[in-house]
């Protein structure tokens, strides 16, 4: 049985009619839909268990704490982290990268360098711009080689003894390019730089194993991987986290407080000030359970097949340009394309009229758009519930666009 045949009944939203057509949702890279188990786990938590975690000495508080910490264990296993205290809950990928940029940023000195790449999401650019600003540190970017992959020779040259941080996406949210994380992390580490990997587009799509990936930090969001909005994960190697001073304060992240000083809590709570997203952690647990039941290898295979189908069918339509690696090469579950003469927003509006939801615009990657010399692209992205029929409906609608406006 194909994965979508197995999963479609689990996603209530797929029963919606949009503009007179059954919804075809091809925007999971922006935010995926949720299976019933995730929705019900969160409702059940609010109906039966909710209380604040860690400090409530009553039954509900203890149950909520247990569920919240169980989510951490679940994430640890899902990403192959060596220790549970290496899993820090955040509000999402942007929040996780910002936390790192603020924290590491305070240790930057004049002449230090932070290296990012041309294909980053703004969430992996702006926090570093803010981090280097006013400190005399420098932000540089690895260029693209051919409009589809990073120039790894340039990367090797750009990592120098002055490089303090190398931050890059595992999978490009526009091109779908899968960057060689292991190779890049090894090069960065040999120069003494910390590595931060934006896994927002990889965690929903690929099996992850922190023990072999070789990065210091790995950041992703729950809502792109069938989970709820409002929670994300920051994985950090324990030895590195232990050296970092917290950048954000509040409850939960301290052991003892005086008016003029405080003693920090242990990992991972040191980096989790304030009441955390508890119901969202419960939802994330349910999402991971769902994905693990399917098997991430199978998820990657299914979404990879849909991407290949989309790349080949779209590229065969006259007037359509597909960006990113060719179908023979590995790519994430996203396919960006352009239709001659059509602005991406018009493409998305015309597809929406057929019940097909896609993303259009710069995808929060303006430097990459500039590099590709486009104002934006239209992007279809795939999840476990998408079928080859969904891709066929997309390509038929795209082929009909020239006559539609």
């Amino acid at each position, binding site marked *: 049985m194909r994965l979508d045949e197995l999963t479609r009944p689990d996603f209530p939203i797929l029963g919606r009619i949009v*503009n*007179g*057509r059954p919804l075809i949702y091809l925007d999971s890279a922006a935010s995926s839909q949720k299976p019933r188990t995730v929705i019900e786990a969160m409702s059940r938590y609010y109906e039966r268990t909710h209380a604040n975690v860690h400090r409530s000495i009553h039954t509900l508080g203890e149950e909520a704490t247990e569920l919240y910490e169980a989510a951490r264990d679940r994430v640890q296993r899902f990403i192959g982290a060596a220790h549970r205290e290496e899993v820090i809950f955040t509000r999402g990928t942007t929040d996780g990268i910002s936390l790192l940029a603020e924290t590491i940023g305070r240790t930057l000195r004049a002449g230090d360098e932070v290296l990012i790449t041309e294909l980053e999401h703004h969430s992996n650019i702006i926090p570093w711009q803010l981090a280097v600003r006013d400190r005399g540190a420098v932000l540089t970017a690895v260029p693209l080689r051919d409009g589809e992959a990073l120039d790894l020779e340039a990367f090797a040259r750009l990592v120098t003894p002055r490089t303090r941080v190398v931050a890059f996406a595992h999978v490009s949210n526009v091109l779908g390019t899968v960057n060689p994380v292991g190779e890049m992390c090894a090069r960065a580490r040999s120069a003494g730089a910390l590595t931060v990997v934006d896994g927002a587009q990889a965690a929903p799509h690929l099996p992850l194993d922190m023990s072999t990936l070789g990065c210091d930090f790995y950041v992703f969001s729950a809502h792109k991987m069938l989970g709820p909005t409002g929670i994300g994960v920051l994985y950090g190697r324990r030895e590195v986290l232990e050296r970092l001073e917290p950048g954000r304060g509040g409850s939960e992240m301290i052991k003892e407080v005086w008016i003029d000083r405080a003693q920090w809590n242990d990992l991972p709570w040191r980096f989790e000030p304030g009441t955390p997203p508890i119901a969202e952690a419960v939802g994330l647990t349910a999402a991971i359970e769902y994905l693990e039941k399917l098997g991430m290898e199978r998820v990657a295979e299914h979404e990879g097949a849909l991407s290949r189908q989309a790349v080949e069918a779209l590229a065969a339509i006259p007037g359509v340009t597909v960006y990113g690696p060719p179908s023979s090469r590995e790519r994430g579950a996203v396919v960006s394309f352009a239709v001659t003469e059509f*602005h*991406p*927003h*018009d493409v998305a*509006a*015309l597809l929406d*009229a*057929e019940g097909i939801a896609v993303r*259009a*615009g*710069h995808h929060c990657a*303006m430097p990459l*758009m500039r590099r590709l010399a486009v*104002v*934006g692209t239209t992007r279809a992205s795939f999840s476990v519930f998408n079928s080859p029929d969904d891709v066929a409906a997309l390509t038929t609608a795209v082929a*009909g666009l*020239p*006559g*539609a*406006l």
Partner: protein
Amino acid sequence: MTAVPGAGAAGSSGGFAAATDPGGRYRKGGEAPLRGIPLPYSDIIRQRWRQPRFRGELPGATAVAEDVNPLCGDRVRLMLRIENGTIAAARFLGDSCAICTASADVLAELIEGRARAAPGVGKSDLLERLQSDIRPTRMRCVTLPLTVLATALDKPIGDPDAAR
């Protein structure tokens, strides 16, 4: 009603439109939806996008401005030639969607001959001329040219009379 290529394919009947778009939300002033699709694009938007009348360079422009819609990267450049306090000519250039292009084209048409001090064209005028109900997410596509106009009138070039 203009014939549109490809419109004949899968049922552009009024019956289908009534079934899928009972409120006629995206059809005001437009025609029957294409291939059974209710569209936000009116005839006017389509025509102005396909064949804009005011798109192009404006030699001798005395006021020029350009702005970007951060949401989608739409970029519109508006060029005005102001003579004796009147907008004598207006042209635009842009990398923009159909709605934004049509809006810029209609705006240029409306402001020609108007007083520089008070061209008196607003969002509602544009929406009326475009004859389309625009969703809130696309409203900035309509208003971007207005923003550019305001900037252009604030920063005329080579028009000392108009300097504030």
